[in-house]
């Protein structure tokens, strides 16, 4: 236990349930001038693991690589740096395989060749929801564990999610014009996905509005969780309301209604897009950590001048 007299009393004396309080108090202490224990993105680690030379939170020496270790930003940067090239290569291979399967897939008996739009529309739509789900889990990480890396994950995912949602809307419109006779219809599925897109944009705007990442994190996390009510609405909109959009044909009770000659290329493209999401998200998280490190260094430099 730490009994350094320079620390506030809340950090010196253990209290009932001190584990949680201790970490929370460390967080407060770390924001006070002259007190250690938070690194450049506000990550708090136990004091005995602060690297004296660099100030980084060093990993526990006896532990093997685990999820808890990845929560250390310095370790996460090293992990991401090793993994991103492999993931990028895997994504490229998956896209080549997926597009080859799409090229050899048959035309639909009703839609004709236009069915090929589905091989990008459906994965994009899935990923628009998957990305928001990742953000919702990250928002829980921000609010429950108050871990800044959770906010880094959510913030890095938002532009990627917004892009996939826009792609789903655009390709859906381009499919809708020849097949439905209209680019847009205010039906429940289309409208709820448009709301999802606006949510993404709103969240990006919110993060950019609040300059302090710690304060912005909590506000964004609350908005993410409120917005997550839209996810089941999107999923079940085709069942709850009489929509122009077709009901689920892959993830449904009774199994997929699509023939294997189309289901396999669709699954391959979905896998390729998911791999792309994981790669880009890791890379964007790495960027966000660097951005916060630069911000912290900039504040330090400004403070030194003053």
């Amino acid at each position: 236990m730490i009994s350094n007299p320079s620390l506030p009393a809340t950090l010196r004396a253990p209290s009932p349930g001190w584990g949680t309080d201790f970490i929370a108090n460390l967080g407060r202490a770390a924001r006070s001038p002259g007190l250690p224990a938070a690194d450049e993105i506000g990550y708090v680690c136990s004091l005995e693991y602060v690297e004296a030379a660099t100030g980084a939170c060093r990993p526990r020496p006896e532990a093997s690589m685990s999820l808890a270790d990845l929560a250390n930003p310095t370790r996460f940067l090293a992990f991401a740096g090793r993994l991103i090239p492999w993931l990028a290569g895997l994504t490229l291979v998956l896209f080549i395989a997926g597009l080859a399967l799409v090229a050899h897939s048959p035309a639909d008996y009703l839609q004709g060749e236009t069915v090929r739009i589905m091989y990008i529309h459906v994965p994009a739509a899935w990923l628009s929801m998957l990305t928001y789900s990742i953000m919702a889990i990250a928002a829980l990480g921000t609010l429950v564990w108050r871990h800044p890396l959770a906010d880094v994950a959510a913030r890095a995912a938002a532009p990627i999610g917004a892009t996939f949602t826009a792609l789903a809307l655009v390709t859906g419109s381009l499919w809708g014009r020849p097949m439905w006779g209209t680019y847009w219809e205010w039906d429940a599925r289309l409208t709820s996905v448009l709301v999802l897109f606006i949510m993404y944009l709103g969240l990006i705007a919110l993060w950019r509005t609040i300059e302090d990442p710690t304060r912005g994190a909590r506000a964004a996390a609350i908005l993410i969780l409120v917005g997550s009510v839209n996810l089941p609405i999107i999923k079940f909109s085709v069942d709850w309301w009489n929509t122009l959009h077709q009901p689920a044909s892959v993830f449904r009770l009774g199994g997929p209604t699509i023939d294997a000659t189309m289901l396999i290329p669709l699954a391959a493209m979905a896998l390729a897009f998911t791999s792309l999401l994981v790669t880009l998200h890791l890379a964007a998280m790495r960027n966000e950590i660097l951005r916060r490190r630069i911000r912290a260094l900039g504040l330090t430099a400004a403070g030194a001048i003053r």
Partner: protein
Amino acid sequence: MIAVLGPYAGFILLSYGAAALATFGLTVWIVLDHRRLSNTLAALEARGVTRRSARAAARLAPETPLETQA
């Protein structure tokens, strides 16, 4: 190619064009952002701007292992 894709070839090609634009656009943006951020960080460190946590940790206990402070 366009003839093979039938009467709605334009819509199909536009969709794939949009997908290519979205994926390449995101990738290029993230790669360039990483390059810019790495350069900025390197420039700051070259100017001797050190991390707050580094100075704070050194100030707290430069020699004494914290485990022994109980």
